[in-house]
C-alpha cells in the first residue's frame, strides 16, 4: 500500500499539466472542480499510504522509493526518490487535506475572475511542489520543491498583476526568499563537502562524522533558509505584503503550507541540529523574538488580512521556539493546529471581504454576526483556538510549546507567555471589531453612496500600513446606491469553513498531555527524533502553575480587548501607537538603507570597480598581447641576412648542445 506514494505528487502534477493545456476550455467552474478533485485524490492516496505505514511495525516505518536517477555526476548522485516516514506522511496528510478544502473554497471565491483557470494551474503546481518538498529523500529534491513553492508564491501573490502593488509584492516575496535560499544552498554544499552525499538516510546515518562546529554551521545555514521561507526575523518582510494575493492564496500558502516548510526542514534535520546544539539556541531565541515582535504589530493593524499575516509570523515564531527547545513534536502539533485555525481565519476573512464587497478595513465593519452566521460562528471557533482557550486545539499545542520553553529557559517562556497575552488581545480585537459592536459600514455606505460614480476594480489594493486607504465601497453588484447589505457566502466557501472549524475545535485530541496513551502524535513521531526529542523535566506542580498562568493571561487579553473595542473604556488610538502601525518602521529602514549605502555600493561597483578593475583587467590582457606582439614582430626585419644569422645562431646552439652534452 505504501508504494503508491509516487501518486501523491503525480496527481497534482497531472492536474497542473491538464489545466495548463485545456484549463481555458474547461472554464469556470469546471477547471476548479478538476483541480480540487486532483488534490482530493492526492489526499485519499495520502490516507492510504498512512494506513499502510500504520500497519507496519514501528521500527519499520521508513519506506524509500526511488523513481529514477536524476543527477549522476562524479561523486554526486541525486535520485528522484521519496522517503515516507512518520514525519513526511503527517505533513503530506494535512497539506493535501487543507489544500483540498481551500481548492473548493477558491471555486466560489474566484468565481467571475477572467483568469479563473490559471489560478488553479498555479494552485496545483503549488501542491505538487509542496509534496515534493515534504516527501523528498534528499536535500536537492527538497530544494526543488522549496524553490517550486517559492515560485508559485510569486505567481499567486502577483496574480492580479495589473495592480502595481501586487506585482511588487510578488517580487518582494521571491527575492526575500532567495536570500534565505542562499543559506540553504551553502548548507547543502557544506554537507556534500563533508559527507559526500545529500541523501537523508546517508547523511543522518553519518552525522557523527561531522565536527560539532561544522554541524553548527550547517544548521545555521539551513536555518537561514528556514528564516526566509517561514518568515522569521529579519526575513519576514515579504509576508505582510503577500496579502496582495487572493485570500485563498494567503490561506493556503501563507498560513498552512509553504511557511511551514521551514519548520518542517528543521524537524527533518534534527540529527544535524543535535550534533551542533548552539544552533538550537539561536533558533529558539529568534523564534521567541519573532513571535513577540509580530504580535505587537498585529495589535495595531486595521486591515483584516494584515492582522492575520502578522499573526502567522508570530505563530511561526512559536513553532521555531519549540524546535529550538528540542520539542519537535510540539512544533509539528502546533503546525497542524495552526494550519486548521489559520486557514479558517483567512478563509473567514475572505468570506467577510466577499460579503462586504472587498472592504478590508476592520474599522469599517462591525456587527456582521447577524448577516454572516456561518462565517462568524466558524471564525469565533478559530479565534478561541488561536487565543488558546481550552478545550480548543490551539490551547493544547501552545501549552505544549510553552512548557518545553520553560525547560529551555524561563526567559523564553516569559516571552512566549507575554506573546500569548498579545495573541489573545489582538485576535479578540479583530473579532470584536468585525463581528460585534456597531455596524460601522452603514455610516460609511451612506456617506459614500452619493459620491460614488465609477466602477471600481474588483479587488482593491490592500493597505501597506495599518490604516487602509479609504476606497469607495463597491455597491455595484448589489443593487442601487445605499442599498448595501453584507451577505453570506455560497456553500463552496462555507463548507470548508465548517470542516476546518470542526478540526480546530477537536484537533487537540491529537496530542493531549493527559498520559502516554493519549499522545497519539507524540507516539507516532517519536521514532523520527529518538533521543533528540526533549522530554519535559518540569515537575507536575510546575506544569499546573504554568497552565494556570497561561489561562490567566489569555483571559486578561480577551478582557482588555473587550474593554477597549466593545465597551470603549479606553480610547482606541491610545492602544494603537504609530510605531506599531508602521511595523516598527522596519520596511522603511530597509528602504532607507537600500537608497543610501546600498545604492552607493552599487554605483561604486558598477562604475568604478567594474569599469576600471574588471574591464581594465580584461582589456589589459588584450593590450598586453597587442603590445607584446608589437614588440616581438620587430624580429621580422624582412632582411634575408638577418634570418640567415638567426639560423646560424640556432645551429651553433644545437651543435653546442650535442658536443658539450657528453663532455
Amino acid at each position, binding site marked *: 500500500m505504501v508504494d503508491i506514494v509516487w501518486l501523491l505528487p503525480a496527481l497534482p502534477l497531472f492536474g497542473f499539466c491538464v489545466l495548463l493545456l485545456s484549463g481555458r476550455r474547461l472554464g469556470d467552474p469546471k477547471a476548479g472542480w478538476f483541480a480540487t478533485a486532483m488534490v482530493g485524490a492526492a489526499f485519499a492516496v495520502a490516507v492510504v499510504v498512512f494506513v499502510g505505514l500504520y500497519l507496519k511495525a514501528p521500527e519499520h516505518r521508513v519506506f524509500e522509493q526511488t523513481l529514477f536517477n536524476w543527477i549522476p555526476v562524479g561523486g554526486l548522485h541525486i535520485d528522484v526518490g521519496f522517503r515516507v516516514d512518520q514525519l513526511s506522511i503527517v505533513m503530506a496528510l494535512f497539506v493535501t487535506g487543507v489544500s483540498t478544502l481551500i481548492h473548493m473554497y477558491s471555486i466560489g471565491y474566484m468565481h467571475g475572475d477572467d483568469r479563473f483557470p490559471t489560478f488553479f494551474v498555479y494552485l496545483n503546481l503549488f501542491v505538487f511542489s509542496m509534496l515534493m518538498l515534504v516527501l523528498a529523500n534528499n536535500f536537492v529534491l527538497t530544494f526543488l520543491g522549496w524553490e517550486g513553492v517559492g515560485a508559485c508564491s510569486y505567481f499567486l501573490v502577483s496574480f492580479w498583476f495589473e495592480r502595481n502593488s501586487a506585482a511588487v509584492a510578488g517580487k518582494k516575496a521571491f527575492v526575500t526568499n532567495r536570500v534565505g535560499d542562499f543559506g540553504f544552498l551553502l548548507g547543502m554544499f557544506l554537507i556534500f563537502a563533508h559527507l559526500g552525499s545529500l541523501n537523508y538516510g546517508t547523511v543522518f546515518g553519518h552525522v557523527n562524522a561531522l565536527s560539532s562546529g561544522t554541524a553548527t554551521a550547517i544548521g545555521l545555514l539551513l536555518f537561514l533558509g528556514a528564516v526566509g521561507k517561514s518568515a522569521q526575523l529579519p526575513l519576514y518582510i515579504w509576508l505582510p505584503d503577500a496579502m496582495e494575493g487572493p485570500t485563498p492564496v494567503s490561506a493556503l500558502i501563507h498560513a498552512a503550507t509553504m511557511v511551514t516548510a521551514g519548520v518542517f526542514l528543521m524537524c527533518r534535520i534534527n540529527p544535524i541540529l543535535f550534533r551542533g546544539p548552539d544552533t538550537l539556541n539561536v533558533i529558539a531565541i529568534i523564534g521567541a523574538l519573532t513571535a513577540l515582535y509580530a504580535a505587537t504589530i498585529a495589535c495595531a493593524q486595521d486591515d483584516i488580512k494584515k492582522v492575520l499575516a502578522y499573526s502567522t509570523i508570530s505563530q511561526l515564531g512559536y513553532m521555531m521556539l519549540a524546535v529550538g527547545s528540542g520539542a519537535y513534536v510540539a512544533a509539528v502539533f502546533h503546525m497542524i493546529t495552526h494550519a486548521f485555525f489559520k486557514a479558517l481565519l483567512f478563509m473567514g476573512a475572505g468570506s467577510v471581504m466577499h460579503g462586504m464587497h472587498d472592504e478590508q478595513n476592520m474599522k469599517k465593519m462591525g456587527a456582521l454576526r447577524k448577516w454572516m452566521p456561518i462565517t462568524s460562528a466558524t471564525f469565533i471557533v478559530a479565534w478561541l483556538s488561536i487565543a488558546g482557550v481550552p478545550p480548543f486545539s490551539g490551547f493544547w499545542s501552545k501549552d505544549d510549546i510553552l512548557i518545553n520553553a520553560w525547560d529551555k529557559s524561563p526567559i523564553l517562556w516569559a516571552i512566549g507567555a507575554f506573546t500569548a497575552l498579545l495573541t489573545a488581545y489582538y485576535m479578540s480585537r479583530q473579532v470584536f471589531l468585525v463581528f460585534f459592536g456597531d455596524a460601522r459600514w452603514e455610516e460609511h455606505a451612506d456617506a459614500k453612496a452619493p459620491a460614488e460614480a465609477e466602477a471600481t476594480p474588483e479587488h482593491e489594493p490592500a493597505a501597506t500600513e495599518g490604516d487602509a486607504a479609504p476606497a469607495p465601497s463597491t455597491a455595484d453588484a448589489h443593487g442601487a446606491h445605499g442599498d448595501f447589505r453584507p451577505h453570506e457566502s455560497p456553500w463552496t466557501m462555507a463548507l470548508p469553513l465548517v470542516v476546518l472549524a470542526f478540526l480546530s475545535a477537536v484537533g487537540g485530541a491529537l496530542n493531549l498531555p493527559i498520559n502516554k496513551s493519549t499522545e497519539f502524535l507524540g507516539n507516532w513521531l517519536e521514532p523520527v527524533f529518538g533521543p533528540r526529542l526533549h522530554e519535559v523535566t518540569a515537575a507536575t506542580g510546575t506544569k499546573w502553575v504554568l497552565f494556570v498562568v497561561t489561562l490567566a493571561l489569555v483571559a486578561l487579553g480577551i478582557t482588555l480587548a473587550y474593554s477597549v473595542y466593545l465597551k470603549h473604556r479606553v480610547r482606541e488610538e491610545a492602544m494603537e501607537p504609530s510605531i506599531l502601525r508602521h511595523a516598527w518602521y522596519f520596511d522603511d529602514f530597509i528602504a532607507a538603507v537600500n537608497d543610501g549605502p546600498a545604492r552607493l555600493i552599487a554605483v561604486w561597483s558598477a562604475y568604478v570597480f567594474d569599469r576600471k578593475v574588471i574591464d581594465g583587467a580584461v582589456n589589459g590582457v588584450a593590450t598586453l598581447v597587442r603590445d607584446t606582439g608589437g614588440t616581438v614582430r620587430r624580429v*621580422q*626585419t*624582412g*632582411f*634575408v*641576412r638577418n634570418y*640567415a644569422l638567426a639560423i646560424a645562431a640556432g645551429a651553433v646552439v644545437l651543435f653546442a648542445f650535442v658536443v658539450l652534452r657528453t663532455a
Partner: protein
Amino acid sequence: MAVPGAWYLTLAAILFVIGAVGLLVRRNVLVMFMCVELMLNAVNLTFVTFARMLNDIGGQIVVFFVLVVAAAEVVVGLGIIVAIFRRRAGATADDISLLKG
C-alpha cells in the same frame, strides 16, 4: 707518411666557418651564393676524409650526391636571382624586404 685525418678535418672546419661568416656579412647576392658553395665544399672534404679514415665508400657516395644536388641547386638559385634582379641595377640582398613584419 700520410697526413692524419684530423688536419683535413680542421681545414674543412675553417673553410666552413669562413663560408658561413661570408654568407652573413656580404650583401651581393651572387657572392652570398658563392659562400654557400664554399660551405658545401667543406662538407665534401669532411666526408671524403672520413671515407678514408673509416675505410668506408659510403662517404664518397654522399659526396657524389651532394655534388649533384649542389649543381641543381645552383641552377635553380641562379634562375631565381635572374628572375628577381633582372630590372634592378646594383641590387643587393637587403633590397628584398617586403616580408618585414
